């Protein structure tokens, strides 16, 4: 843009110089005519004056003309100098511009190079980083996979264990509930057959060991520790004997030949 403006300035300046030169060299027809006319006018008037005056006038005019010529030449020289200077300036400007341009280009080139180098470097770094990241990710994934595998294995193990536990619990619960049921059947039977004697002390604690056979018939009753009197002890034995045959367990595996019966009545 600046360059363009300098150029246009330069052209307009050149045009003026040309126009002025044409004018100064008298190449302009109208100005010659004008000058001629002026002389005639002056001649007409000169008629009124002497020759010396004319000579002087001619001299003066010549002088003027010369002066004008000198002026013109000087002007021309000045213009030329100016032109030259302008040209030089333009040239220097151009050169400066060119230099600037080249410098800029060089700089740009350098920058470009640096940039590209940097880019290359970055790219390299990125590549390295990417590679590292990739490796890391791969490692991580391997790790995750390994972990997942381990987890899966342990989950599987836990699952199996849980299922085993559940099965075991279920089995135990079933056995337990059946055992409780069996126990309750025995408790009910014996309680309904224990005629608590009036001499039953508060805090009675008596243990009976009862031997039964699978039919529920009682083959032996042994009184263990007991703080009751003879009548109470007999009532306990009677309660057990009266309960025979004892209820049979819900499942045969729960049958127990030896029963421990604790008589611990609530007061």
């Amino acid at each position: 843009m600046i360059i363009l403006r300098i150029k246009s300035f330069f052209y307009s300046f050149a045009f003026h110089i040309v126009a002025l030169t044409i004018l100064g060299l008298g190449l302009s027809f109208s100005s010659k005519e004008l000058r001629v006319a002026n002389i005639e006018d002056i001649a007409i008037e000169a008629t009124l004056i002497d020759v010396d005056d004319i000579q002087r006038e001619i001299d003066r005019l010549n002088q003027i003309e010369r002066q004008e010529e000198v002026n013109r030449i000087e002007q021309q020289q000045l213009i030329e100098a100016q032109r030259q200077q302008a040209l030089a300036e333009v040239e220097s400007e151009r050169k400066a511009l060119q230099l600037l341009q080249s410098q800029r280009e060089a700089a740009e080139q350098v920058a470009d190079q640096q940039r590209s180098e940097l880019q290359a470097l970055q790219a390299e770094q990125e590549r390295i980083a990417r590679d590292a990241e990739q490796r890391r990710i791969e490692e991580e994934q391997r790790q995750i996979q390994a972990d997942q595998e381990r987890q899966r294995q342990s989950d599987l193990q836990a699952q199996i264990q849980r299922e085993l536990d559940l099965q075991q619990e279920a089995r135990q619960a079933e056995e337990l509930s059946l055992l409780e049921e069996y126990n309750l059947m025995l408790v009910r039977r014996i309680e309904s057959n224990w005629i608590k004697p009036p001499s039953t002390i508060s805090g009675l604690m008596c243990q009976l060991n009862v031997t039964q056979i699978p039919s529920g018939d009682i083959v032996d009753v042994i009184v263990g520790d007991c703080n009751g009197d003879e009548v109470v002890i007999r009532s306990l034995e009677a309660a057990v004997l009266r309960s025979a045959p004892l209820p049979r367990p819900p499942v045969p595996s729960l049958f127990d030949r030896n029963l421990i019966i604790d008589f611990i009545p609530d007061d």
Partner: protein
Amino acid sequence: MILFSSQSLAQLRIEIRQGVERPIQIAVVPFTSQSLSSSEISNIQDVIQSDLINSGRFTTLPQESMLSRPILPSDVDFNDWRILDIDALVIGRIISSGQDQFTIHFQLFDVLRGEQLLAFRLLSDSSSFRSVGHKISDMIFAELTGITGIFNTKVAYISQLGVGDTSRYRLIVSDIDGENPQIIADSPQPLMSPSWSPDGTQLAYVSFEQDKAAIYIQNIEAGTRTLVSDRLGINGAPSFSPDGRYLALALSRDTGNLDIYMLNIDGQVLTRLTRSPSIDTEPAWSPDGQVIYFTSDRSGNPQIYKVDTRLGGNISRVTFEGTYNARPRLSPDGNQLAVVHRGANNNYRIALVDIESGLTQVLSGGYLDESPSFSPNGSQIIFATRENGSGVLSSVSTDGRIRRKIASVVGDVREPVWSPSLED
């Protein structure tokens, strides 16, 4: 993998926390005799049956339900009784051993265990068969329940026959089932407040035969009697101390107002225990003889108080429930009082008062029940109740479960007093 078997489980432990309140099922096989009529024999056997039934703790098997009638222990087949759900079996026989002399054999068996529990021989003449029956009942009862039997104890009571000028008052001692009544004293004037001596050989009572209340002590067997208090005013409510040396009694003397006194029977030393303008009467001894409980209206209505027999004074109130508690008698363990308690609808009923807590539990169901008295084993209370305008004997178990009217007593009966356990 865990395998299950009965071995892996804990041995079965069964906890029994309650029993049942049901009677023991007993079978009394008819006794046999070569020489006696069945009605004579039944005097023993029926007494045993009815004693056991009346106790409320037994049911007996009707004869016609028996599958066998063993006489000797070797005749007994326990399965005959197990199949009938019989718990205990009694067999017996009466053998003549001289002129009106008999040996009564009896055996008690535990049917479930199939073993003999008792085997006794008792000598008796035919007139004492009832008493023998009561003795056997006592032995069976004690063996099977663990508490002392009371079938051979007695009851003393006042019976009034007729009204007005022709009426007679009798002090009677009978078997506890009302049978075998013996007249101890008979008077056209009121007899009152019999009290057993601790050994059961004497009765103290109040007689108005001299037109004023006086206290006598009478030997039951011999019929002899001693006047022990004939002081000015009212001589009332005698009560033997547990050691038999004292009578507690209520005297008005010259004050015209009853207070509690203690009389040394032999030395006639009188100790005054209460001194109040209110009526203090109906003394009753604690089993250890240290405290006398009595009725007093010092609070405005009759309540039970107690006084220390050694210190004198030191009187404190015992009953607080209701507006009428009177005629205290101590349970054999000394923890409870049987009283006449006025409750809902102004009914006078027999109640049990726990001395420590003051808790009162009404046991009887009449409207004018009076004179409660504990059985020596503490399991029952005898009292008089009104039926068709006349007093009759009744008993209730101290747990309130078994109430029973004692039939076969004549007259308008009041003031029954249960005897102590009697030696024979």
